[in-house]
């Protein structure tokens, strides 16, 4: 067990070191969330805007950035391993693949959390926007649940990037789609009913709903149900991921195409 923890920590440590020197990683936590926060605040923070709308401007950019890093960073790291010729070595080492990817994904999650720093700063200093009715306890729990759901999604998607080269551009192309369905910058209730149905199978949707509900006194506050839905779906993703890790282990050895760029 200690060996596995040490291997995961090494993957985490190395991925964090690579992120610190990567200009794109800096864009991901600093620049992109800032842009979304500014656009969101200009659109949502108009004179006479209601409180709940404003909160979407304050936190929305950070959520988009957090999700973007968690969702794609694992894939980018797999792609980099492939391009650097180290992906096959990762598969060949005795440490299970999921342990190495868990270390990488934990790095992505921690890095993604940084997205809230610039967005909250620009909301406060640039737009004098505050979150006046914050329920700190429920907000903290909701954020914890959201982090778990991001971790589960990242763990489930990362093996797909290793299995299929086209998965990364495809998921990259649909990033905005996930942001719509998860309700990061506006509630999913504004979407058509069929889209709300699709949004319901995404764990971050429920966690985000709880997160925003903890910042306002308006609307329903079914925190227990939302947290349970997010945690339940996250557990399902992790089970799905376990299946994918087995599949990829078999497929990669059979096809021998793992290193093809």
């Amino acid at each position, binding site marked *: 067990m200690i060996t596995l923890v040490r291997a995961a920590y090494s993957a985490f440590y190395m991925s964090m070191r690579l992120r610190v020197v990567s*200009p*794109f990683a800096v*864009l991901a936590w600093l*620049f*992109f969330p800032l*842009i979304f926060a*500014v*656009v*969101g605040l*200009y*659109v*949502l923070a*108009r004179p006479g*805007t209601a409180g709940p*709308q404003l909160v*979407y401007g304050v936190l929305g950019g950070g959520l988009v950035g957090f999700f973007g890093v968690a969702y794609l960073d694992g894939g980018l790291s797999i792609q980099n391993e492939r391009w650097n010729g180290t992906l096959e070595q990762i598969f060949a080492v005795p440490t299970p693949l999921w342990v190495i990817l868990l270390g990488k994904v934990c790095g992505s999650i921690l890095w993604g959390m940084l997205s809230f720093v610039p967005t909250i700063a620009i909301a406060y200093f640039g737009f004098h926007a505050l979150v006046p009715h914050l329920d700190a306890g429920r907000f903290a729990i909701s954020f914890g649940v959201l982090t778990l759901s991001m971790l589960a999604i990242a763990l489930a998607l990362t093996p797909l990037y290793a299995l299929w080269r*086209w998965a990364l*551009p*495809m998921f*990259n*192309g*649909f*990033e*905005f*789609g996930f*942001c*719509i369905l998860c309700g990061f*910058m*506006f*509630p999913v209730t*504004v*979407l058509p009913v069929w889209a709300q149905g699709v949004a319901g199978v995404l764990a971050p949707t429920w966690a985000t709903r709880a997160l925003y509900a903890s910042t306002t006194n308006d609307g329903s506050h079914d925190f227990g149900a939302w947290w349970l839905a997010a945690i339940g779906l996250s557990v399902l993703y992790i089970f799905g991921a376990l299946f994918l890790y087995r599949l990829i282990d078999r497929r990669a050895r059979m096809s021998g195409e793992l290193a093809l760029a």
Partner: protein
Amino acid sequence: MKRLAAEAGVFARSTYLQYVALFQWATIRGYIAYKVLLPVTQILFFVELGVYGTGRQNALYFALGNALQVTAQAGLYGVISTVGNERQFGTLPMLLASPANRLVTFLSRAIVNVLDGIVTVLFGLAVTVLIFGLDLHHANLWLLGLCVLLISLTTAGLGLLFGSLALIMRDAITIANVVYYLLLVLCGINFPISRLPGAVQVISYGLPLTRGVEAARQAAEGASITQIGGLLAGELLVGVLYAMCGYALFRWLEAYARRGGLQDAY
């Protein structure tokens, strides 16, 4: 005349080769990901944000702005990655060593991206019409088409300027990301630029897209060429200035890269 024909031949060959060799999305899956999914979901995202913030009556404002802004994907990412890919694939030193006319080579980097940008914006507009019911009955369609063509050219001009940096930078695509997303804030795509601070508005009017999007919005409402001619002329001027600055920078950085042996530094 003979020389002109030779230059035209270089231009055509260069355009064709950069299309077949450097367009990474030229696969069905790549095209679906970057040219269908990404633009459509970007438009949907900002329209839903706008509808939530300002009401359904403003959906078309957001839809049209974002449909036009996706042109910059081709103009910026396309042009910048075209130069960047030469470097990554190891063909940049050969390109720089060739005796071909630099201006012809330089401009050929943009032409397929301009066409690609037009296709992208037409696709974006089609989505806008279908999903959000953009009413183009009163629109001046020829003028709207001219706006689309101009925006594609001017954003490619901006792309040429920043693409030149790929001669000496490894991560030029990072620059493309920065510029593309800054355009979302600075060019009146999702909110009027009059809401930006005064100094930032000056920057906005110094960028391509700002006047083009404003002109396109008016053309969609049925404005005539006399009403938006000034905006279109301004947009064209800005685009030409960026392309000229880009060419000057390209020549200067080419010499710099040659002196420092940076062409191969990947």
